[in-house]
């Protein structure tokens, strides 16, 4: 396979800067040309700050009893959970392998343990929602509320997505492009219906010729020296030209999940959403959107919000935190299954073997229950990866048994190691880039990749 190199990158930057792709389907081009690593990425955001003890990083309630909370500073709170759908025993954890447990709300994702790499004890270094989100997305701590780098997906799209119609697609999650070519900027929408509205031409009194004339006038205005000097006006013109290309690409049918067709009905059934407005705005529909965007060759990177409302400082921690996490994990499980069921070209391989799915949240929640019966923000985080070259069936790193603090980890073995490093999101981004053949620190995060994720 021909790996992407800097010269090739710079060349594609010039071409890509002309607009958003060239109206071509990427899959046959990318696969046939062999120019780029055959890697695709889906980032799944759990909004509000999740509680890993209910999902990715649980504790044994027989060891971490309420009697020793003073010593461990860890209160599992499992006895407080109120779930209308499930009744938990004294140990509600889900065992997936010898000595490997997930929290009680891991949902159907537990069925895919063999494909999962779970990173525990990751340090976020920030407790603000926006800051934590920006930290994970960009791999850099923001400066105040201003990001200091482009999103990892923007970098990946810039490197790999020159042939895709929408190289970088983001639903309900912010994305940043500070230093990459314009084509790599995420097309950001709030929901599946809004994406459909973006891709569909609106009815108008004017015919195509009249629209071309307007476009000509605007293009002429944009070519003036005054306009050329303005970065904003250059970006505006590139985006405006991109609209025309996108509309002519006719991509909307791919995302018309409410359509009365057998294929769309099957999709709705698999992910578990209705074709009405509520269903199309659901996390499940976003999961379907991400997989569709990737497997149809429209996108290289897709980011979706699979869970929301996890900021449970009060008594809603006991009632809402777990079920909302479980819903998000179930969406990821459906995506993994969907990717596995779709053949990658005619290679005999599945799309799952070429697509890395990342589940993340901006930070975690405190190890002790607060006075309101909830949990506040905590620095120690976890995340889950699957697909592509990710080595599944492994736990990387750990959080400490006192207060769930971050713990140093060997980047090569993934084992807790006092001589190792605290894992940060940027270690993971660098591993994803390394898997795509990019060994340079193109994100300028100045850490080594977490190679334990890869073979």
């Amino acid at each position: 396979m021909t790996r992407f190199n800097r010269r090739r990158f710079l060349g594609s930057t010039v071409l890509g800067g002309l607009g958003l792709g060239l109206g071509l389907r990427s899959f046959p081009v990318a696969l046939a040309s062999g120019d780029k690593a055959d890697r695709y990425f889906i980032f799944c955001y759990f909004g509000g700050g999740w509680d890993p003890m209910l999902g990715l990083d649980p504790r044994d309630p027989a060891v971490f009893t309420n009697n020793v909370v003073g010593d461990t500073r860890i209160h599992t709170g499992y006895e407080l959970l109120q779930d209308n759908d499930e009744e938990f025993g004294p140990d509600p954890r889900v065992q997936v392998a010898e000595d490997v447990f997930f929290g009680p709300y891991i949902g159907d994702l537990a069925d895919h343990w063999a494909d999962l790499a779970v990173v525990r004890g990751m340090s976020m270094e920030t407790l603000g929602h926006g800051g934590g989100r920006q930290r994970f997305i960009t791999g850099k701590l923001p400066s105040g509320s201003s990001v200091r780098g482009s999103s990892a997906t923007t970098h990946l799209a810039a490197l790999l997505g020159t042939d895709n119609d929408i190289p970088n697609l983001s639903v309900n999650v912010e994305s940043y492009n500070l230093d990459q070519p314009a084509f790599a900027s995420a097309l950001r929408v709030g929901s599946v219906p809004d994406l459909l509205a973006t891709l569909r031409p609106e009815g108008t009194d004017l015919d195509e010729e009249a629209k071309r004339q307007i476009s000509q006038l605007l293009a002429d205005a944009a070519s003036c020296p005054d306009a050329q000097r303005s970065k904003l006006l250059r970006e505006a013109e590139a985006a405006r030209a991109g609209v025309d290309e996108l509309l002519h690409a006719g991509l909307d049918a791919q995302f018309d999940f409410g359509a009365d067709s057998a294929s769309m009905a099957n999709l709705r059934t698999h992910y578990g959403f209705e074709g009405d407005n509520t269903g199309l705005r659901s996390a499940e529909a976003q999961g379907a959107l991400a997989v569709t965007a990737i497997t149809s060759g429209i996108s290289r990177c897709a980011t979706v919000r699979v869970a929301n409302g996890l900021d449970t400082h009060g008594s809603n921690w006991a009632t809402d935190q777990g079920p909302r996490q479980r819903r998000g994990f179930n969406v990821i499980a459906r995506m993994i299954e969907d990717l596995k069921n779709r053949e990658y070209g005619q290679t005999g391989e599945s799309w799952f073997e070429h697509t890395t799915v990342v589940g993340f949240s901006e930070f975690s929640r405190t190890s002790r229950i607060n006075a309101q019966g909830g949990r506040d923000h905590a620095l120690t985080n976890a995340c889950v990866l699957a697909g592509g070259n990710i080595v599944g069936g492994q736990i990387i790193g750990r959080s400490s048994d006192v207060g769930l603090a971050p713990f140093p980890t060997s980047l090569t073995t993934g084992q807790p190691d006092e001589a190792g490093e605290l894992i940060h999101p940027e270690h993971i981004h660098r591993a994803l880039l390394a898997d795509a053949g990019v060994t340079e620190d193109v994100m300028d995060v100045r850490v080594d990749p977490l190679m334990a994720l890869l073979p």
Partner: protein
Amino acid sequence: MKRLLLAALLAGCAVEAPTGTEAPPRVQVPVDEVVEDTGDLIAAKELAPDLRGRRRLNIDQINASIRTTTGFGWVDDDGDDRFEQLAETLGKPDYVQNTQEDLAPSLVFQKFLTDAAHAVCGELMSAEYQRQPEQRVFFVHAEPSDGVAEQKAAVEENIRYLLLRFHSRKLDAGADELDQWLWLHESGEFVSHDARLAWTAVCVGLITHPDFYTY
């Protein structure tokens, strides 16, 4: 048509300061002296007072501007505001998850601004055709049926008025910058044989032009 296009291309970049305005003459910075990809940063010695970096209006401002200039909002069949419906997609802050509006002139923004322009301009044309001359806000100096060939002076006068109304640009009669708009009207009429559609194109062009949504 080619003559019209050439004229438009030549006139499209006209920057001659109109007389009668109080704005100081602009300092022209040659393009080849500006380093690419440095944004709006220009060496301080070259800066003129009117060469600040441009910013995009936020969605509320654009919504209000469209309603003010045309008298119509972009609404769906139920009368609900489309800008409000698309607030999340258009980057408006919800003050729960985010507090800063995304002011990038992104592809999504351009798509929906264009949709809005087509929708409100269609409404505006329908209304203007029904209104008495003194009630009109678009056809103030020209009749809806006026074309460039027969009523050039009236059309030009109306376009000058529209540029002031939509872009806050006050141009003198005969200013070069008018040519591109006259071309848009004339070529639209030439193709469609319908003055209404030609004026609709002018309306859409005015709203989707950066002078409308940036400052």
